């Protein structure tokens, strides 16, 4: 009986205890998940959803991936694991491809849910909606640049579980249709967004107009220059824009750029805060306080959980804050393409009639050039974070032989001397030794002068500028030039060139295609734009033709758009040692190609538009493949 009593009471316990508290105990709201209504009833929570969408913005060049800013032989990559990039012959057809329709779907979902929200005020809602549309248009712009025309999905598609998904499969739009979409979205949202030049990391009217001007310019040049490569097109115009539309797009690009220039979008202008022009151009990229030039940026914050290591990867190796640095080494071709202050081109004068030119100071050879040179590149004899760099390759003796070392700052005994002296700089250059300035240069643009920026534990919060005022000016100049308004083009170019310290103003008659090309090349280098310039002008297969560059060729044709860019070259400073000679202790320069540069890049016609992966094609048989693949 005792046993039964125990069992019965146990059963009773079971039956009673649960029924009563059921509703209270088990039916609790989850504390880790927010429902849709909760998200879209509070502006700050909705903003955090939008922030995630901002964070997934697609950039071709990123400061948190250093190599992406310095592609296409504008620089040598001084990292042993990256040398193969200079030893192969080109790129696969799939390179640079993107196809993230998951991102587009999430933007579409955000748009639909935000539209349906009832708790948000109209002002907040309309700004959020406009921002999401800006992000969606930006991603379509990125898609069309890389893939050509793509399916245009403007709603969050739902699968009905019927077993047949074919109604979800959309064909590719024409390339022009995607550009038209980007332009029309920019037009539609520009007045919904704030015209506030102080807001940099969120979409503004300025950002929408800058995107419009860039997109229209790209579309226009594809229409015009696409005729040079008739093979790069598809019969359905998924790739290729009819030449007849060029003028229309150029006009759109010019108008959008002029809206910004006229101040319709807020007080934007060229950054001109510092009297020293090189310092000024350098500060443009790291000065985040009241910077009138930046229009739309990817922002970072030290201590805020979002930092990048660009400075750590690229800081001068000598005196670096970590045992690394020096990765991006701008090429000789890039350095010599900066004009003299009077606006003429000249190679770096390193020899005259076969004999070397001797310089008193190591940096004299770079004197009198475009102020952007010293701001974009760390030259021998300059300094970073007030520490001088030590870039020199060795000692040249009287008979022309070279004494050098194979470790940084190595010391050796020179002939006729008894004591060891340093025979190579602490920054190299040493052929094949990673992190030294193997081209003779380091990059300066986007390097952060703050203490700690090169430490892994701190890192840098310099922002990445996606759109800036100088590009808008150059867009306007190019569009004006193509529309036959050369004087106007010269006016815009001169604004950019005056800031670089170039004393001779261009006239309308001076402006030609090579000028436009050159100005964008030097002004916008290492900003992820050069590649798309090469593509839209259909120049990539000409300057990346797979042929090696000879030493005599490398200093020719400076400023010519079709100059070969298949390999980076170097120029190394040497100290002349010949006691008693008037040139003793002076500097001379030698041009060379690094032993690690064995390949020559070849851009195939099939590279103009990235391959759509077979997986995507399998899922959607209505897609056509890109040309030449």
């Amino acid at each position: 009986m005792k046993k039964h009593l125990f069992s019965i009471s146990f059963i009773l316990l079971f039956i009673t205890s649960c029924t009563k508290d059921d509703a209270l105990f088990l039916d609790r709201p989850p504390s880790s998940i927010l429902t849709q209504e909760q998200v879209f009833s509070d502006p700050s929570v909705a903003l955090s959803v939008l922030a995630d969408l901002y964070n997934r913005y697609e950039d071709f060049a990123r400061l948190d991936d250093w190599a992406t800013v310095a592609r296409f032989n504008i620089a040598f990559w001084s990292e042993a694991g990256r040398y193969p990039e200079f030893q192969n012959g080109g790129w696969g057809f799939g390179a640079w491809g993107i196809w993230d329709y998951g991102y587009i779907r999430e933007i579409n979902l955000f748009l639909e849910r935000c539209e349906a929200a009832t708790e948000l005020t109209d002002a907040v809602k309309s700004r959020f909606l406009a921002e999401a549309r800006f992000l969606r248009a930006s991603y379509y712009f990125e898609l069309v640049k890389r893939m050509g025309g793509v399916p245009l999905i403007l709603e969050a598609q739902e699968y009905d579980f019927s077993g047949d998904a074919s109604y979800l499969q959309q064909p590719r739009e024409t390339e022009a249709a995607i550009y038209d979409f980007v332009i029309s979205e920019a037009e539609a949202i520009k007045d919904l967004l704030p015209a506030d030049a102080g807001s940099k990391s969120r979409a503004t009217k300025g950002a929408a107009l800058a995107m419009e001007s860039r997109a229209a310019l790209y579309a226009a040049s594809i229409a015009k220059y696409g005729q040079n490569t008739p093979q790069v097109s598809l019969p359905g115009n998924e790739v290729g824009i009819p030449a007849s539309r060029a003028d229309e797009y150029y006009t759109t690009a010019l108008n959008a750029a002029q809206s910004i220039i006229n101040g319709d979008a807020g007080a934007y202008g060229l950054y001109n805060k510092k009297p020293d022009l090189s310092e000024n151009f350098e500060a443009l990229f790291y000065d985040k306080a009241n910077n009138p030039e930046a229009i739309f940026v990817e922002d970072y914050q030290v201590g805020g959980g979002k930092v990048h290591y660009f400075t750590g990867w690229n800081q001068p190796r000598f005196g670096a804050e970590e045992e690394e640095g020096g990765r991006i080494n701008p090429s000789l071709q890039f350095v010599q393409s900066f004009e003299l202050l009077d606006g003429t081109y000249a190679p770096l004068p390193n020899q005259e009639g076969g004999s070397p030119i001797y310089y008193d100071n190591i940096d004299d050879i770079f004197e009198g050039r475009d102020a952007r040179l010293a701001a974009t590149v760390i030259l021998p004899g300059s300094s970073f974070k007030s520490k001088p760099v030590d870039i020199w390759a060795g000692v040249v003796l009287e008979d022309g032989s070279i004494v050098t070392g194979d470790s940084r700052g190595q010391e050796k005994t020179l002939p006729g001397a008894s004591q060891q002296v340093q025979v190579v700089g602490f920054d190299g250059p040493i052929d094949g030794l990673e992190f030294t300035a193997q081209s003779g240069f380091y990059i300066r643009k986007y390097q952060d002068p703050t203490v700690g920026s090169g430490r892994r534990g701190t890192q840098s919060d310099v922002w990445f500028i996606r759109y800036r005022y100088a590009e808008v000016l150059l867009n306007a100049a190019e569009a004006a030039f193509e529309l036959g308004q050369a004087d106007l083009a010269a006016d815009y170019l001169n604004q950019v060139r005056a800031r670089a310290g170039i004393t001779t103003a261009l006239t309308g008659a001076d402006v030609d295609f090579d000028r436009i090309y050159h100005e964008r090349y030097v002004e916008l280098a290492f900003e992820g734009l050069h590649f798309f310039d090469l593509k839209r002008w259909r120049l990539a297969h000409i300057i990346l033709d797979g042929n090696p560059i000879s030493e005599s060729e490398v200093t020719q044709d400076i400023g010519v758009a079709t100059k070969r860019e298949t390999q980076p070259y170097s120029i190394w400073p040497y100290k002349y040692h010949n006691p008693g000679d008037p040139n003793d202790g002076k500097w001379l320069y030698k041009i060379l190609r690094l032993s690690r540069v064995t390949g020559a890049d070849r851009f195939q016609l099939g590279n103009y538009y990235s391959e759509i992966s077979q997986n995507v094609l399998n899922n959607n048989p209505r897609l056509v493949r890109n040309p030449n693949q």
Partner: protein
Amino acid sequence: MKAQIYILLFGALLLASACELDNFQEPDAFFTGHIVYQGEPIPVARNQVWFELWQPGFGLSAPIDVAIAQDGSYSSRLFSGQYQLAFLPGEGPFRAPTDTIFLDLNGDEIMELEVTPYYMIRTPQFSHSGGTVSASCSLDQIITGDEAREVERVTLIINRTQFVDANSGGEGSLAQSNAADISDLSRISLSVDIPEDAKKPDQGYYFARIGVKIAGVEDMIYTQVEKVSL
């Protein structure tokens, strides 16, 4: 003892039977041949010119890329079946047949694909003296009239291995040099210096070929690779 026999028997059964179920039939047909002009193979750069084979009738349709080798030959191991052969527009230094070619593969098949090149390189001659490889050739323009295209450059390429072409970097080209004068296509002479590289062992021979770049055409046409003894 008995148990052992059973184990052996069981093992033998397993070996004999298990594989049959999940074994696929292997591809059984070699599809080989050359791209030719009037019976003469057209040499091109390795792995840079190809055509596509499509096999209809299956769920997903993806092309089988067949690359053309340096000597103009190709070879592909396939399942017997029906295929469609197509050249991509603009592929190769020639005008390819624009019509799709239907193939019914049943066992090995040899097919010479007739194409019309813009130019043919005739009578190539290679020689060597004093660290310089010299060559001469003449060009025979095949496509004339409206679709004729200019010669952009004529290049002599040498390499240490038998893989020689102008566009695959150090893999295909040790050194190359363009003809200085291509005004007379019936007599073109070229020469290229053999670069000295102390890090590589001496060898008594090099491989050379001449390539012609035609304006507006991506792929170059070549001569056959020639071994030049020093």
